[in-house]
């Protein structure tokens, strides 16, 4: 009897492994649809770049999501290095470095709201490096002294569950102004901007769009409609998909459009203004793999890898920062992007967050 159950267990585990392996085999067919023209570009660029070889050394990365694994693997293979990564929100990265007495957590910091990068630069945590193709990135998307560079923009939109709204006889909102209407009370979910770079971008965008005082007045009205703030960056999307809330404030990218199609939802770009936030990339000061991290930033800025990044991030072409790099067409109306002041993204962070916390106390 006992022996049987052990056998059964081993069998189960074995089965799982086989399943995993089979799953892998199925996957091969999917890769065929890659666009052809990127390959040509790739060949040209590779010829220009001299071959780097890091002899199996290690680069450690903190990043916002494990979805970049493909890009890291490609880099690891090209330069013969090992890449390990850990996903972490940008606020958490800063907190932990502070807690550990300024010791860098990794060599490369990939992704996360630019405000955290600005703060890290001010705390002297970053290493300056001007990558090879920096001149092809508009100056507003990179630090003048080379401490950070942007890898793309996150734009903020609404994920709307119309089924839920219809039950209450409501229409999908198309503007921020509408969102603050009391009729949407308790139907909206947003994440804590201290945790979510996207939602910090939303708050900052609203303040830039309305102006300081009117902006806070608006946030107060919006706050009345929000029962609580998610404690995880992914909360708004997840909870809207799960049907817990009718409207989620989310980063509008391919994955949210996919999630929308999958679950009969819609993604809305707010018509009165789309907040956005650049995502940073930076090298930590004093890491052992500093040179590998520098090579990675060069690698990342190459056209072929930018295309790859656009694909992994699921970004509209207008969200990419290097000139001439395409992406998905997600119908992002570029003219609706709010005229935001990037320079104050980092410097105003503390002030904005503490005022926000007072405003939303207990949620």
């Amino acid at each position, binding site marked *: 009897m006992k022996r049987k159950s*052990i056998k059964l267990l081993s069998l189960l585990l074995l089965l799982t492994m086989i399943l995993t392996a089979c799953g892998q085999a199925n996957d091969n067919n999917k890769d065929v649809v890659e666009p052809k023209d990127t390959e040509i570009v790739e060949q040209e660029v590779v010829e220009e770049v001299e071959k780097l070889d890091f002899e199996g050394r290690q680069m450690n990365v903190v990043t916002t999501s494990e979805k970049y694994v493909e890009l890291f693997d490609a880099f690891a293979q090209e330069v013969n290095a090992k890449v390990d990564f850990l996903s972490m929100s940008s606020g958490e990265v800063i907190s*932990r470095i502070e807690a550990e007495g300024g010791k860098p957590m990794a060599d490369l910091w990939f992704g996360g709201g630019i405000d955290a990068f600005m703060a890290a630069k001010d705390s002297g945590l970053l290493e300056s490096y001007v990558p090879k193709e920096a001149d092809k990135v508009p100056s507003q998307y990179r630090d003048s002294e080379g401490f950070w560079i942007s890898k793309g923009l996150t734009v903020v939109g609404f994920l709307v569950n119309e089924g839920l709204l219809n039950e209450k006889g409501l229409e999908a909102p198309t503007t921020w102004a509408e969102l603050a209407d009391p009729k949407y009370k308790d139907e909206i979910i947003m994440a804590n901007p201290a945790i979510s770079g996207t939602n910090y971008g939303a708050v900052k965008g609203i303040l830039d769009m309305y102006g300081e005082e009117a902006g806070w007045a608006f946030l107060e009205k919006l706050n009345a409609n929000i029962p609580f703030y998610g*404690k995880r960056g992914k909360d708004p999307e997840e909870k809207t998909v799960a049907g817990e809330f009718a409207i989620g404030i989310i980063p509008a990218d391919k994955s949210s459009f996919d999630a929308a199609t999958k679950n009969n939802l819609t993604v809305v770009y707010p018509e009165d203004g789309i907040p956005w936030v650049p995502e940073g990339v930076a090298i930590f000061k004093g890491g052992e793999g500093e040179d590998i991290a520098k090579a990675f930033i060069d690698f990342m800025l190459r056209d072929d890898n930018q295309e790859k990044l656009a694909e992994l991030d699921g970004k509209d072409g207008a969200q990419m920062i290097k000139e001439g790099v395409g992406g998905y067409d997600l119908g992002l109306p570029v003219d609706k992007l709010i005229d935001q002041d990037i320079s104050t993204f980092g410097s105003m962070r503390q002030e904005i967050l503490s005022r926000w916390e007072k405003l939303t106390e207990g949620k």
Partner: protein
Amino acid sequence: MKKKVLDSLDKILMLAIILSVLIFILYPFVSVFITSLMENGSIDLSYFSFVKEESYLIKNSITTGIYTTILSTLFSIMIAVYSYTSSNKVKKIIMAILMLTIISPPFVTSLSYIKLFGRRGLVTYGLLGLSISPYGQLGIVLMQSLGFTSMNAILLIGYLNQLDKTLIESARSLGAKTTDIIKDIILPLMGPSITVVMLLSFIRSLADFSTPRIIGGAFNVLATEAYLSVIAKGNIRRAATISVILFIPAILVFVLYMTKFKSVAMSQHGTNSGEGISLKRQGFLYNIMKIGATFFLVWILIQYTSIIMSAFTDMYQGKMYFTLDHFRDSKISVMTTFPRTILVSLVAGIVSSVIGLILEYYAFIRNYKIAKIIDFIATMPYIVPGTFFGIGYILAFNKAPLELTGTLLIVILNVTFRQLPFASKVGYSTLTQINRDTINSVKDLGGHNLHVIKDIILPLSKNGLFISFVNGFTSTMTTIGSIIFLIYPKQKLATMVMFDVIESGKYGVGSVIAFLIILICLMVNGLYFFLISRKRRNKDVSYGIQPN
């Protein structure tokens, strides 16, 4: 000459164990206290002002703790009594279901709870047509109760099994009704163990940060706030202060537990014949117990079925379909992290068991006073939230002479010493079963104390060592709180990856990882049952109490 060498080895061994407990348990604790109380070398209590300003956090934590304690204790009593009065077959099924919740990683159940009981939940909306918000205190209390009840029930069952059955049997043969036997004999006899279970539930509820984080909604508790202080506010001092506040009720309850009820918790390891009693399965009270227990067990099963379902299915436009995509997507993370996770768990399980046993040897066989104090310190990781222990490690080991942050070693040390409370308790109860005369006779024949350890203590404690190894292994495999702040990119463990992918919204992939963690723990536990049951068919196995 040889004796001298052995003597000094003996001293070195004891010193090493004492020092390791002081450095890896006491020092991190002290660091947390110092951080919360001091600013630039002088005492500064300004951070404690939140006790007044945000007193609702304390109220929330305490009320949640009380509700969870009541609910999980009630359920566990019902399960224990029902199991006690059931046939051996039913007993085994109940034990298997209870085990399931103990060997699985935390917070997956909270996610499946939303899926099942949320506004569009499969049960609430799909079956019952209700559209209710699952968030808030009720959600936390339900989920915590679900998690704690199993542990409580296993403790109570272990306790019931060793009760003297003659009283019950004679009452029965005198014609007493089942309801009366339960009410007048079984329940009163369970009294002390129920108190223990209540105290433990309360401490664990205070320490739990992940359940409120996922389903608390606007309802915040101290443990979550401590976690958020690190993650969102970058304020480790505030986190340390909140941890200190959480420590106060925990230590009070703990001291009470140590002084009044130590014997109850001790006695549940190892000794017993699993034979049940032959009560008539009828009567009002029996049926209430049966209904309560069945309800709870079915609830656990539904939740776990839902996790396994999510590993194998996905949704498209409201329709569910079978898929192996999640297995494919998890392949890379599984391949890279599982070997490391298993290794770390093995080390933690083995090292903590051995240290625990030898520490108890010095404390209770050799009767060194200092070892007894060390034994008390060694139990402290048990009562604090995992995050407390993690924050302590960051603060203690981020500078010379012990600069360990960023290494795999700090992770291993953390999980190992976190298991020490359990290991030393098992060590203690194992040692009490070793006959003193055996030890004395070795010494009379000229054997050295080290020979006693090598030839008597270790071999005779095999079973206890194995229990504490299995527990250490299982809880390290499923732990997250204490290591979440310590992990670096090259040291990711399985629960971290699961946390990660769930954070990025890949619930299916997260379920696959949870499923695999459960499988591995199941295999190790199964191995234990297999080895032990071959040797001692009738002995009952009791599992330990595991904080988050």
